[in-house]
């Protein structure tokens, strides 16, 4: 979807404010939101979670801090999936009639779970359509669901830099349509192709793009 989250190339959003190293969280509640988001037994996946945050209305999205967005999407998910009721969320008190669950994740399991080597690569039968050095163009598409094809490269041409095997396809995975793995390519665009003649002719931007986003140039 063409939401405000897709902000690559926008101007007028301010200056980054450098900060020293050493703080994972900037308030204790941020750590609790992060931890609850990872530990809650909601049915979700990384792509559905991202899409949920993209669905926060634009003006609010821009105003909210990072962990306010996480809190909002966690609360929404808990209610949508019937794990808590809006009344419980409002009062902070569990409905005495509701059954008690057993936590999915216990403290001794946390380190192994967080250090597990996962993978988004899947074997598929179809060969990759493109190879390194091929000229491709990012398709001019505007899906209204989740996509990882930013607006700033749509319609622009670049070169395949690397073929990364088939990866879980977010446009399907975010919407309950399975993993639908597709070949994933690293594609390099020159800065001039993206931003015009005024850009430095040496510079480039590379993105990781799935095959359905690309056509031969």
């Amino acid at each position, binding site marked *: 979807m063409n939401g405000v989250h*897709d*902000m*690559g190339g926008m*101007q007028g*959003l*301010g*200056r*980054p*404010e*450098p*900060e020293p*190293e050493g703080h994972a*969280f*900037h*308030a*204790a*509640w941020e*750590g*609790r939101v*992060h*931890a*609850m988001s*990872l*530990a*809650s*037994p909601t049915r979700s996946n*990384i792509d559905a979670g*991202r899409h949920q*945050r993209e669905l926060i209305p634009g003006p609010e999205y821009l105003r909210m801090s*990072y962990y306010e967005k996480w*809190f909002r999407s966690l609360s929404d998910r808990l209610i949508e999936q019937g794990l*808590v009721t809006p009344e*419980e*969320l409002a009062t*902070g008190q*569990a409905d005495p009639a509701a059954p008690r669950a057993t*936590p999915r994740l*216990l*403290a001794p399991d*946390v380190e192994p779970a*967080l*250090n*597990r*080597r*996962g*993978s988004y690569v899947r074997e598929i039968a179809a060969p990759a359509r493109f190879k390194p050095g091929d000229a491709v163009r990012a398709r001019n598409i505007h899906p209204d669901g989740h996509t*990882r094809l*930013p607006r*700033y490269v749509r319609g622009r041409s670049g070169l395949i830099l690397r073929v*990364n095997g088939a*990866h879980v396809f977010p446009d399907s995975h975010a919407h309950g349509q399975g993993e639908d793995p597709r070949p994933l390519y690293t594609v390099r665009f020159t*800065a001039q192709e*993206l931003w015009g003649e005024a850009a*430095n002719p040496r*510079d*480039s*931007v*590379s993105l*990781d*793009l799935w095959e359905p986003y690309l056509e031969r140039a």
Partner: protein
Amino acid sequence: MALRVKALESLLVEKGLVDAAALDAIVDHFEHKVGPRNGARVVARAWIDPAYKARLLEDATAAIAELGYAGGQGEHMVVVENTAQAHNLVVCTLCSCYPWPVLGLPPVWYKSSPYRSRAVIDPRGVIAEFGTELAEDVEVRVWDSTAEIRYLVLPQRPAGTEDLSEEALAALVTRDGMIGTAKL
């Protein structure tokens, strides 16, 4: 926010949906087990061990796992090397993708609208605001983390560090140097 979050946590614990001790362990992981010191060890090893550096540039996920770092948001790692001719900068324009096992959680600016919007269109301006001026003839390569591949910049080893130990070298490596907003 603190009160609302506290209320949600009490509710989830009361309903048996989360275990408070597990939440403590998750917070501890991100505060103490992962962070840019992990990445700094990877960089220092690459500086002193050419065979390790070659493995790191060939298959970063495996080479980083050799040092014991793996996990969520580090499933598919790629290391990009800064040289005298090329400087790399990492961003996630769509959200906040960042290599947690080697850098920990991202700083606020990395997740913020100003950085996400400008890193791709004005990388030299952004880098300058962080205090580094890049020469016109240096090639700037921006990596927008749009999939589950996570990027780590291998900074140039500072001059005059030939006699330093691996540990002392790691102490020179900064988080911003491994994102690319700074040089060392």
